[in-house]
């Protein structure tokens, strides 16, 4: 892409730079220890290996990739559920990675998470009412019990649960309803930013649409910003405004969804998109698939150079040399990290 074309399109598209979240060179390494009595570190799993991106207020940013690529770790490291090994996470202009204790707890009111597995993420011994009101108790909102219950009932109604069930336990609900409980809990503190970590992948197909529609309605109503982590690329195209594709702890491509899906630049994105089946036999017959061989390399021992060089169909000598390709802007807001794309 030439620079003239870039400036041309840039005039048309105004850049939105009201960032709610700024992530810069974020790294999260998990140590590998050896030894029985005297533990020493012998290596590290590079789950997240230097990623940078921003999230614009009010948008949904999708984070996609295969299992083990570090997308869930990224979500948790942003929320400081894991402390980053290196790099900075700024939320509404404030640095989170150095924050501790009460200061961090106050920030957590504004950023919440919805977990993947609605069966494991709700305490089976707590009623729906106490699950949803726990964050309120921790942050000492509504000291009046009656008011608190009223608020919880309102929240339940908002996510499509009958408030009559406030004293029931999680096992009395179906998967989709449990995910609604998880959403109500995340909304309790009126956050502005929610990390949704594969919120629909444990649900049946006919239930997924219900939960996604609910999330979209809540976003319109409450002006939420989502980081939507998923491996279902069709759903990501539906719900997200922008998408970041991760491979082995790094972002390989980032851009507006329609742009990335229609004009993918990185060979991994191209292969990933072509591997997703489309529920239409006619389309499937006519499609040309790019099938990449092999598996994801071990993140404790990533290849030298570009991480994708072990599976890339268009690999050449530069791909094996350090440093790995930088993320460059090929079109307005569309970034790619590949030596083939310049």
């Amino acid at each position: 892409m030439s620079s003239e074309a870039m400036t041309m399109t840039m005039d048309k598209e105004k850049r939105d730079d009201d960032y709610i979240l700024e992530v810069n060179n974020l790294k999260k390494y998990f140590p590998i220890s050896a030894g029985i009595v005297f533990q020493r570190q012998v290596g590290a799993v590079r789950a997240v290996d230097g990623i940078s991106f921003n999230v614009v207020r009010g948008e949904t940013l999708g984070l996609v990739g295969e299992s083990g690529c570090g997308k869930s770790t990224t979500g948790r490291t942003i929320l400081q559920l894991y402390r980053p090994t290196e790099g900075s996470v700024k939320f509404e202009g404030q640095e989170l990675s150095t924050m501790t204790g009460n200061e961090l707890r106050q920030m957590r009111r504004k950023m919440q998470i919805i977990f993947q597995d609605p069966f494991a993420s709700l305490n089976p011994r707590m009623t729906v009412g106490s699950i949803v009101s726990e964050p309120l108790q921790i942050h000492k909102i509504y000291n009046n019990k009656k008011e608190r219950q009223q608020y919880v009932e309102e929240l339940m109604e908002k996510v499509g649960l009958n408030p009559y069930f406030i004293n029931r336990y999680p096992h009395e609900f179906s998967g989709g309803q449990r995910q609604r409980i998880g959403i109500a809990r995340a909304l309790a503190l009126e956050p502005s930013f929610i990390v949704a970590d594969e919120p629909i992948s444990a649900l049946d197909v006919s239930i997924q649409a219900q939960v996604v529609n609910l999330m979209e309605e809540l976003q319109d109503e409450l002006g939420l910003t989502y980081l939507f982590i998923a491996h279902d690329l069709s759903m990501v195209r539906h719900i997200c405004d922008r998408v970041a594709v991760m491979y082995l702890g790094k972002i390989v491509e980032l851009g507006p969804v329609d742009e990335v899906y229609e004009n993918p630049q990185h060979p991994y994105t191209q292969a990933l998109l072509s591997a997703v089946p489309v529920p239409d036999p006619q389309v499937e017959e006519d499609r040309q698939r790019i099938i990449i061989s092999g598996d994801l390399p071990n993140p404790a021992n990533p290849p030298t150079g570009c991480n994708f060089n072990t599976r890339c169909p268009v690999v050449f000598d530069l791909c094996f040399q350090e440093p790995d390709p930088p993320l460059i802007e090929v079109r307005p807001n569309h970034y790619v990290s590949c030596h083939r794309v310049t």
Partner: protein
Amino acid sequence: MSVILEVKDLVVRFYTQEGTVYAVNGVSFDLEEGETLGIVGESGSGKSVSSLALMGLIPSPPGKVESGTVNFEGRDLLQLKPDQMRLIRGKEIAMIFQDPMTSLNPVLTIGTQITESLKLHEGMNTSQSRKRAADLLDMVGIPDAYRRLDDYPHQFSGGMRQRVMIAMGLSCNPKLLIADEPTTALDVTIQAQIIELVKQLKDEFNMAMIWITHDLGVVAGIADRIQVMYGGRIMESGSSHEVFGDSRHPYTVGLLGSLPRLDSSGEEKLIQIEGSPPDMRNEPAGCPFAARCDVREQFELERCWEERPPLETVPDSNGDGTHVMSCWADIREGVAQNV
């Protein structure tokens, strides 16, 4: 083309402490030689149980095949004694399971597990069977196959383990391969590898295949015929072009509408099917989908609650009359027929 498998009125129930589970409630279908049938359904729709039943693999108790026949090459599999069935299982009909992590034995080498059926069914000795096993592994794309025979399952990745499962399934040249969600546990790029491999091997071996999945996208690319199941019953069945292109059953229509498409930008809202899947502990008197069906609601059809709709040819379908569905209403016409 001749029919190799004919399932008639299959009924399977589980008698548990919490009550009887009506898993499969009268399922009938045929399979022709070399054909691929995709069985689609959500969890609890009875798709896996019906295929386990025809392999004679329903754990009993608590499960019981109440009635029905499974005719495979002139024999009713449900009437066979266990040792007769053992001669068919793995040899004539093979099965690949969903989770390659749990369906391989972790304490036996891959070689031991593949050669087991070769020795049993083909009467091969150790060196013959090892050679054949290495050929099979090579065929499914495992590099350095002969050496890897002595590796254990944990030394393989998920995709490689599924390849081993496929090699085991194909080891005795079965006439029918049943694949129960073989790619659900895998990532999309690995899923694409496995689907491509199975397609190619199916032609090579000229097998018939039943591919069970909840992913409508996967069967669209692989199946000749699609059968949509819900609540232990077949809702709609037909060639994949008919079921996807001219879907008639309100459940199929709703299911396809609730799926976002990779190839179109998702501006419009997804169609959602209200409610949740049925509790299989109650045997539905009428159509199992009645409680969630928007067509029933719109036309206030009472019959749906009371009587099970039969599986009948879809009126004025374009195909050869194999497009069938079980519904009291024809939604394309916008009118309720037969009511």
